[in-house]
């Protein structure tokens, strides 16, 4: 993996068009309702592979994808910029972790719209040492 390799989480859309993004809050009681069925998830996966992305992990709600920065920018018509954030306010203030941020609103290609509700770039969490 080079430093121009980007990872992203693809929020999946169900075959009925719904996604977790529409729910105010999700609990263990309601989470199952938003699971994407396996076939639909496989179609999403195949379509993303067709675009040239690597699919790293799959889950009932999302796919983790990986690809070159230029690929993401071309497919989703955005510019990506790398940001550095501290991984802990204290005591590791000098430790930072980089992540990519979209500079323009992401456009989901028409071919992916039946499967993809959103594409989001992971922001690292903070540690609490």
């Amino acid at each position: 993996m080079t430093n121009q390799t980007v990872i992203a989480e693809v929020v999946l859309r169900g075959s009925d068009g719904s996604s977790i993004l529409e729910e105010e809050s999700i609990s263990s009681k309601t989470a199952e309702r938003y699971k994407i069925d396996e076939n639909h998830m496989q179609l999403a996966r195949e379509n993303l592979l067709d675009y040239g992305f690597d699919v790293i992990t799959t889950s009932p709600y999302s796919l983790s994808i990986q690809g070159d920065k230029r690929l993401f920018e071309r497919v989703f018509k955005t510019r990506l910029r790398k940001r550095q954030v501290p991984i802990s306010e204290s005591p590791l203030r000098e430790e930072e972790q980089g992540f990519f941020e979209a500079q323009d609103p992401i456009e989901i290609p028409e071919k992916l719209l039946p499967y993809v509700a959103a594409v989001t770039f992971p922001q690292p969490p903070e540690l609490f040492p």
Partner: protein
Amino acid sequence: MTESILAVVSPRSVGGLSIFDAEDSITPETAQEFNSEESVIRSARNELQRLGFKIENEGPITISISGSPKLFQNVFGVKPHKEKVEMVEGLPQVDYFAATPEETEKLLEPPQTLRPSIEGIVMAHPAELFESPLPPLAPVHQNAYRYFTVPDDIAVMLRASRVHRLNGTGRDVVVAMIDSGQYAHPFFNWHGYRVLPTLLGPGQSNPGEDLVGHGTGESANIFAAAPDISLRPIKGLSDAVGSFNVAIGSTPKPHIITNSWGYNVDNQSWQQLKQTNLSLYNYLKLLEATVSSAIANGIVVCFSCGNGTKRGFPSSHPDVISVGGVHVNYPDLSLEASSYASSFASTLYPGRRCPDVCGLTGKAVKIGNSNRAPSILLPVQPGASLDAITPSTGASDDGWGLFSGTSAACPQVAGVAALLLQKKPGLSPKDVKKKLVDTARDVTTGTSGTGESAGPGKDDATGAGLVDAKWSYITTFGDVAAEFISGSSDKQREMLETGQMPHAVDKFFADAMDTLRSR
């Protein structure tokens, strides 16, 4: 087992200069010159595999490979010989394959099929380890307090030692920990702890490395509470959602996932977050769904509340065990809410308060210009960031660091949860949470990092209080035992005299009464 030689390959560098010809020091500023294009790495990898080598690891600068001595001889025309090296002073030497100077020259001139994609190859040379399984005698900073060591001090203070002697050790329970990695510190090996191979979350590499030291150090807290769990480290802070999915999908399936991290966003509603940062909102909704699903599928999930004034999500998720911090004063061992640990009323989930229960966290002390909590001495990869944290243990590469925020408290609670699950494997996450909360030791003094106060009963600063391994374990003995434990002394006598307590050998009752007396 067939002997294998480990070697490191350098694919052709983007800067044009071979890493082996670099005369100047390679620094973080210049390291990128020695990266390789993805296509070159792929080409090198494919050719090496075609030749019969196994790819052990791949990064932007190097590829680690292994192969039999015969393979190395066939491909490179070398015949490495065995040498011995002492990796840890006092321990038996280990064998490794080394090349002569003439052979080293040959390795730097790869065969024709490899030449387009690689600059050369070197044999792996084992490092000398400096860290000890035993912590150093670190000085106590003038502003600080007596620190605890793992595992014993933590086991005692969580009242887990007694449970261990009742054979409650977390055996057969798998705990996944998503963090900065897990280094093979001798502390874990010497104690005989079970550490499964680290899995990588998206965007991660080098599974054996933990340059921050956080994952390695904090995992020691789990073993202090539950020495026989199997730990599954997930190296994965680049993509928390992806890493959570790796944890959920791993085999063996984890019973518990512990997380000493969070997002400081619980100072607004979901709608407000959506308006101010749509990308983060989308990502955290995914995390919310993923965590919810894990719990729905029977996995206990613990999250650190946060340090200082942080308001950590997903700690505030209603189904998660939200873990705060309690400080133990020495020598009287009185408990107080840790001023280093956070507590708060959630705005993402109105009505939800954090924490539910606490683990051990040092209180805040000023060291230099920063607040620190140097309460627990933890094993880290030598030279990791947390090896150098002040106050120092005496060296920044001795493999030990003093740190104990809610990052330490959370895996302690996860360990206690493991004790319950060993005894009663069928407990749901909700049951586990209830038992930990119902049996916690009340903390009545102190103020959290957010300025909330502890008091009798459940309070804003510490929730139910400090997790109590002994009491929570006893409540797994069944309803009758729970009624007995919570009953008055008259009630207990009546239950014993009328035989309502299950028949058991005298030793069990002696143990139980001894435990109750020491409450």
